[in-house]
């Protein structure tokens, strides 16, 4: 009985381990599924101290972006409602302007944060990783999930 249970447990543990290794391998193999912190770490070949520094910068930016996230959702919903209600062209234009302004503020924060990250790096690191980091930053601070969690919709 005990032996049988041990055997079953071993099989279960093995299955869990294999699944875990498989998942990690899949994450490594597919760049779209790395977290943003992993992308930045790989792109710039960050050492441990730099990784911490980047995390602090991104954490701060994500926190600072909270009102912008709320504004984006609010103005987007307002625009949708204006369209649904068949509001006047002027009303739709005003709603569009409000959303575009929120979108611009978010983009500015994303690029400012990337500039702050670049300032912490050596020239050769910037050269190697800027392109990937640049595209990854789009929408990095916009998700309901924190910036370094795998998002529900992949934007990088």
């Amino acid at each position: 009985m005990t032996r049988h249970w041990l055997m079953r447990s071993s099989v279960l543990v093995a299955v869990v381990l294999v699944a875990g290794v498989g998942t990690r391998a899949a994450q490594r193999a597919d760049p779209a599924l790395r977290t943003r912190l992993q992308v930045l770490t790989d792109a710039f070949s960050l050492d441990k101290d730099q990784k911490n520094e980047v995390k602090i910068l991104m954490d701060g930016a994500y926190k600072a972006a909270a009102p912008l996230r709320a504004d984006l959702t609010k103005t987007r919903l307002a625009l949708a409602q204006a369209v649904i209600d068949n509001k006047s062209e002027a009303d739709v234009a005003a709603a569009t302007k409000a959303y575009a302004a929120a979108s611009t503020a978010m983009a500015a924060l994303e690029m400012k944060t990337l500039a702050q990250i670049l300032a912490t790096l050596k020239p050769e690191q910037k050269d190697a990783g800027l392109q990937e980091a640049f595209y990854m930053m789009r929408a990095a601070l916009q998700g309901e999930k924190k910036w370094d969690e795998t998002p529900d919709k992949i934007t990088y």
Partner: protein
Amino acid sequence: MALSRVLIALVLATGLVAAQGGGGSGAPSLGGYKVPTLFELLSGKLGLDYKTQEPAVQKIFGDINAKALPIIPEIFQARQHMLSAEVLNRADSQKTAADEYTLAATKMLAVEVEAFKQVYAQLKPNQQKKAPDGFVIMAGMFVSTPRGGGAGRPGGGGGGFQGGGGGR
């Protein structure tokens, strides 16, 4: 100086990828778990039926995608100018780049609104209640994220709305 060269390369790469019709799209998979595409998220939110509504909405996005494609490089170029202005700490350039981005974002928004109107017309009354939330999901739907060197995302096709977009 080296950074400026990279920024220039970035602009060129953006233009190249945009000319190729965008980069990443499609749904990546994770050990059997498939990350849903934006279209799948939208379809789930609105409760589209797979037989008639999903193909109809896909066709709408496919048709409208052509209007979005020329705006994608404008968006990334404006973002690149925003980054350059930040790196150089030039307030005047920051303002110019922000205005450039607002213009591009407004153009893309017009495309999204056009798509939204057509999608809304396909919905049944009970689905229409969820339409505003659907429009939130559609944010950035037509903006494919170029991958390094213009390669597509694994599992992805050409540029388009299927899953490479997102964000606003």
